[in-house]
């Protein structure tokens, strides 16, 4: 069903999609007696934008939480970079290079935009506490290198003008962008976006779409995202997983998925008998 792809191919718009970087195998997740995810398998390939879509309550966010280690599935395996991933805490998953954003924004409200984005660099900071106190030079050099990387991302997402502003004072749309900046600052192998466009107006959605595409194009970031807006998904993604009631009902390119009868039924609604 899900053969691990080791080859690469070039998309119509000239991006190279590499081999499989992450694979979910037969994931089942239960909360008490409620099954949130039932036996789902799919893969994510290097450099692609992979969307997970589905109606409300389909289990999309749960899936993202499984990938990022916030939920531990009862059954199934997560394979990452060719190895089976042992059970891990969310922070360990993050240190492996899986960054994420949240549906209802989880930023450090009391800190400035710059500090928020800097926390994204924790994976790249190696100097210990005592080294920072004693061996000032090395720690400073590291801090400078990280600052430069962060400034690049701040420029890239066009948030220079709010660098020093505390996040709590920003409007919703900009908060979403700062969260994306923090996740990108980690230079992740896989970037997980949980409804990056939820609650945005048309203009903000267009901006966000552009940033996602550019990040994928310029840094080659592999992206897995959840989105409600079908139009956005069709424009952005290379491949789409469709979920409904915790089950996978479709998987393929946007064109394949949109013509899939099960998907059409799930979205337009049919009588479940």
């Amino acid at each position, binding site marked *: 069903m899900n053969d691990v792809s080791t080859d690469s191919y070039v998309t119509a718009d000239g991006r190279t999609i590499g081999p499989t970087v992450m694979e979910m195998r037969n994931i089942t997740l239960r909360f008490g007696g409620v099954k949130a995810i039932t036996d789902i398998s799919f893969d994510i390939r290097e450099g692609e934008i992979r969307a997970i879509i589905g109606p409300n309550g389909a289990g999309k966010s749960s899936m993202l939480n499984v990938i990022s280690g916030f939920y531990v599935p009862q059954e199934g395996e997560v394979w990452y970079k060719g190895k089976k991933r042992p059970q891990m805490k969310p922070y360990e998953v993050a240190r492996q290079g899986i960054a994420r954003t949240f549906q209802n924004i989880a930023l450090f409200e*009391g800190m400035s935009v710059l500090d928020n984005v800097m926390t994204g660099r*924790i994976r790249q900071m190696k100097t210990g506490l005592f080294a920072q106190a004693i061996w000032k030079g090395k720690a400073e050099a590291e801090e400078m290198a990280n600052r430069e990387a962060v400034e690049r991302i701040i420029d890239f997402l066009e948030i220079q003008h709010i660098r020093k502003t505390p996040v709590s004072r920003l409007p919703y749309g900009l908060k979403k962008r700062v969260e994306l900046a923090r996740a990108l600052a*980690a230079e992740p192998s896989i970037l997980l976006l949980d409804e990056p466009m939820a609650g945005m107006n048309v203009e903000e959605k267009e901006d966000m779409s552009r940033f996602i595409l550019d990040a994928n194009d310029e840094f080659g970031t592999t992206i897995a995202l959840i989105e409600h807006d079908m139009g956005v998904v069709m424009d952005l993604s290379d491949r789409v997983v469709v979920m409904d009631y915790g089950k996978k009902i479709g998987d393929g390119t946007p064109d394949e998925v949109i013509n899939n009868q099960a998907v059409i039924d799930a979205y337009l609604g049919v009588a479940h008998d």
Partner: protein
Amino acid sequence: MSDNIIFGIEVLMNGLMAGVLYALVALGFVLIYKASGIFNYAQGVMALFSALTLVGIMQGQVPFAHLINAALGTDLHHFGWHVPAVLAILLTMAIMVLLAFCVQKFVFRHLVNQEPIILFMATIGLAYFLEGFGDLMWGSEIKKMSVGLPQGGSFWIEENTQWMGLGNENFFGFFLDKLDLVATVIAIVLVVVLVLFSQYTKQGRAMRAVADDHQAALSVGISLNFIWVMVWSVAGFVALVAGIVWGTKSGVQFSLSLIALKALPVLMLGGFTSIPGAIVGGLIIGVGEKLFEFSIGPMVGGATENWFAYVLALLFLVFRPQGLFGEKIIERV
């Protein structure tokens, strides 16, 4: 200058010094509260425990001597060596870090996401456990702390401030305790170090991040457990500093743990989440209670220092519940 004004100024200065000592204890509270939302009732006992441990190590006391003697019928008390102060302080700090690790591993790790009142109760439990443990480990007699901090009035200051009397013959210069002056310097250095740590190191940044949002902190790769052990260690360090200063001033005795109660009004004034607030709050309480005792005290029969701080805190609770520097409480409706 008249006698009264001069005496008033001296009272003011002594009040500032006392305030610094209060602030020292309040700092420990603020640190833990900011980073983990726990109101650590045990902060005072931690100061006591660190002071006991420091004196015990310096004097070469055998830990758990009573227990060992009772169990094995031996008669151990001291190893017979004396450990230099610096080494003893380092060893005590190591023990405070170990304590932080144990507190996190055996208590608060299991209480993540519990109600604040439950966490508070846990710290009360911790306070009494630690008090008993300190007693068991080092004995309950009053001990003398002598790590080399200067004590007694400073003649130098007295001599060099005599001219400030401007011809008043009764004035022989200001009387300031050297220990208070040293404590002030220590407190200033401590605050500067803490601010530098939290603003400019990656651990400090991670600590602020955890204080702000657990989920977000996890998602960027911060281990909550590690940060909490670190926060308790830093609080242990602050407790050790407070323990050394208070222990030198009034001897290492079990009533030391009650200084925690003096920190409460300081926190209500300064706000539970503000490091500068702890300092300013401490100074206001210190100066306020000394000046009040000096000016109003005689009219009401004295001993106002016992309650002044709490009444002041009560007034703050009524008119500015978030304290001077605390985060503003805005309820959305």
